[in-house]
């Protein structure tokens, strides 16, 4: 139990996917303009990263490893993740329209987000078992969501700020993300 708690704390706070691992920067910068949008994105990311962890773990350990085809990891993962998300998108539209209305537009956006592929590859690199892989996927997406929500709050403030012309837009957003990352350094050492 402690192991999993530490895993979650580690992935959410200490090695935050966005702020220390630099995964998923594009949606982090792109979908942080308005809180409701960011919330939808968080839901979609949590769902996709958790289930992608499960799916790719199965792919790796039930197909690729037994066949000795570990080097096909990248291509197989990306194909399967992309198709999986697409299928979920289609199925959700059909069977759960309200859910699709809330999360649907974000699903294709994160199909091939590097955080999703990243968590799958990391699961393999860190040699996690199935449950650990799924928990890690979930925790990583929680970390992403936490960073995204905090950043969205900041972004709404910064969008009303008055930076010099050259720093308007992405530049000041990056500096803010840097300061946020600086604050997150405080969690260093929280989990060994």
């Amino acid at each position, binding site marked *: 139990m402690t192991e999993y708690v530490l895993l979650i704390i580690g992935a959410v706070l200490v090695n935050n996917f966005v702020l220390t691992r630099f995964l998923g920067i594009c949606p982090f910068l792109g979908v942080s303009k308005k809180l409701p949008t960011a919330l939808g994105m968080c839901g979609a990311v949590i769902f996709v990263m958790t289930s992608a962890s499960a799916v790719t773990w199965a792919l790796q350990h039930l197909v690729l490893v037994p066949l000795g085809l570990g080097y096909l990891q990248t291509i197989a993962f990306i194909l399967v993740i992309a198709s999986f998300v697409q299928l979920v998108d*289609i199925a959700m539209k059909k069977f759960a329209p309200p859910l699709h209305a809330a999360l649907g537009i974000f699903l294709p956006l994160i199909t091939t987000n590097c955080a999703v592929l990243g968590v799958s590859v990391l699961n393999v690199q860190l040699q996690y078992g199935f449950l650990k892989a799924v928990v890690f996927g979930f925790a990583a997406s929680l970390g992403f969501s936490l960073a995204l929500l905090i950043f969205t709050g900041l972004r709404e403030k910064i969008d009303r700020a008055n930076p010099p012309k050259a720093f308007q837009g992405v530049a000041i957003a990056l500096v803010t993300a840097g300061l946020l990352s600086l604050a997150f350094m405080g969690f260093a050492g929280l989990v060994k």
Partner: protein
Amino acid sequence: MTMVIQTVLTIGGAGLVCGGALALAARFLAVKEDPRVAEVDGILPGANCGGCGYAGCAAYAEAIVLEDAPINLCAPGGAEILSKLAGATGQTAQMAEHKVAIVLCGGDVENAPRKFDYNGVADCQAAHTTGGGDKACPYGCLGYASCSRACPVGAIEIVDGIAKVHPDLCISCGACVRTCPRALIKMVPYARKIHVMCSSRDKGPAVKKACKVGCIGCTICAKLAEDEAIKMQGFLAVVDYDKELDNDAVIEKCPGKCIVRI
């Protein structure tokens, strides 16, 4: 060799499964969107300036495809986008006449006195509703740069207390026209260079009191201009931009010095 075969089978199989699954799933889901909308949207420049009168480029794209809206409304896109749109929609269209915005007021700090010291939000709308605006002339440009801020391309600059549009930078989106609380900004053909730089509808004496370069309604220019290219609207001379006007006499003879060539 076994390795190669295994690899091909695995990845090929993955492709087959994924492709098959997607194809099957796609069959459940009839594509509702008109693909042409996406295509047209892709052609449009994505500036979302609203100059076409629709809420952003996507809305305009939808209007073009579904409502047969004219394709020549995108001013920022220019001829290049127009030809692409023509190719995509099969419509043939001429570019709408190139129009640019102009601020019809010449009452800069030199010429138009203020009636009080305004202390508040530096915004024309706010100034206009606080004591009626600090300019003595109730029609003149307040110079608080609301239009300049509204301009998506930074083509408006405040010079000596009044707004000036750079005609070459203007993309004729009309954002400034909608913003000006005193309705001073007009879209005029780029080719027309002579303007009456005043919008005051007051009578001569009142104008004179409020501004040194106001139109006092003397009608001299209206008489001089051929083809009624300048008409009187009440006490204000107004250029009819549909007509050719290239007559330096109107500029020289204007007693208010409010007709200029830009």
